[in-house]
């Protein structure tokens, strides 16, 4: 099948190349999967004598398939980040020992982290006690007293 004297499969491959280039120029638009689908369609059209509508249907199916395959591949092979805790402040604080700034009474108080102060939940403790951050929810840290029973009093 030909349009304007050129084989349709060439048009498909040309479209695939243009889409791939566009993906490079305009990043993050996922054109690369569509390009892959177009290329596949072109190959199939070259091998089999298919009508134009059928080629489009094939292209749409290939596009969905390539996206699903790509997502599957993405989830299977997660490239580890060298800093998985980026933008996760509380996760960064877990395990740190901090000092209670405002006594924890009735389960909530404030602790000093660096030169900032965070809301904290945990067992009742006087100001100055040392606690360890065990987790957090929202903007509130959960803390536990530092082991060894006797909280060290620290003046800051």
């Amino acid at each position, binding site marked *: 099948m030909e349009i304007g004297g050129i084989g349709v499969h060439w048009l498909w491959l040309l479209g695939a190349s243009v889409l791939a280039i566009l993906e490079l120029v305009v990043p993050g638009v*996922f054109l690369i999967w569509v390009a892959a689908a177009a290329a596949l369609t072109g190959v199939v059209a070259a091998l089999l004598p298919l009508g*134009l509508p059928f080629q*489009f249907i094939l292209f749409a199916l290939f596009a969905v398939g390539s*996206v*699903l395959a790509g*997502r599957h591949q993405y989830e299977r092979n997660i490239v580890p980040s060298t800093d998985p805790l980026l*933008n996760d*402040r*509380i996760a960064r604080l877990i395990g740190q020992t901090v000092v209670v700034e405002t006594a924890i009474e009735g389960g909530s108080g404030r602790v000093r982290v660096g030169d900032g102060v965070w809301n904290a939940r945990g067992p009742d403790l006087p100001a100055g006690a040392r606690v360890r951050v065990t987790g957090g929810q929202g*903007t509130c840290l959960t803390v536990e007293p530092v082991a060894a029973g006797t909280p060290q009093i620290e003046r800051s």
Partner: protein
Amino acid sequence: MGIAIIAIIALGVAVLLWLFSSIKMVRQGYQYTIEHFGRFTTVARPGLGFYPAFFYRVGRRINMMEQVLDIPGQEIITKDNAMIQTDGVVFFQVLDAAKAAYEVSDLYVAIMQLTTTNLRTVMGSMDLDETLSKRDEINARLLSVVDQATEAWGVKITRVEIKDIRPPADIVNAMGRQMKAEREKRAVILESEGSRASAILRAEGEKQSQILEAEGRREAAFRDAEARERAAQAEATATKLVSDAIESGSAQAINYFIAQKYVEAVGQFANSPNAKTILFPVEATQLIGTLGGIGELAKEALAKGGEASPTVPSTRGGGGR
């Protein structure tokens, strides 16, 4: 045939668009809230997500990085009624994307208004001098209040800083003069303290020197008195010796000595360069008495022998030379 091709092409385009809107690539630093038929279901974290369009859609794109919000300059009246111009910055970070997206309508406006009103509260409760000198305290109090209030929005306020505090020009002028006067006062006090200390030192030196001088005089007086005593003692001893000698010898001997001295003294009057007239301020009768004594000596001498008379003038002449 033509309409069928168009329909199929449209279908292909629709599938493409559907794919585009289903694939959610979230960039690092952001989180998207995903709504399922308008209801919040989950948060899309950085990475690739596939949320089939029509059923799911992205609600809000939340910036999870620490952000800075400028608090515009505003006029605040302090406790002592001074009008000051102040502005500041708030640093905050969204920790809970869902809360930040749905618990508050416009996060930025909300944080700004909250900080602005609390800035007024905190600085309005302080004197002008306090607002200028206690920025740390203002920052800490603001941070505490704003942080507690924004907890419900999943926002952590990391810092609130006052950038600038500008009192009105006339007050700045007065403060400058006050500072200058304060320093001048200290300078004058220091100067007068210095002169006081120096006067005290000088007086103490004088006192010391006078004491030493008086001690010297006392010592000298003691020594003088001793010397006088010693001299008197010597005189007494001499007199005693003389009187002893007289006692053991004749009383006439002493008379002879006295007469000799008198005559010598009179002779000295005669020798003085302007002594054409001799005055006898001394008791002439005594002298005459003495002469009487001499006469007696002569009489005795004549009664004994007669050779003594020429010796008297000769001894007189020898004593005069």
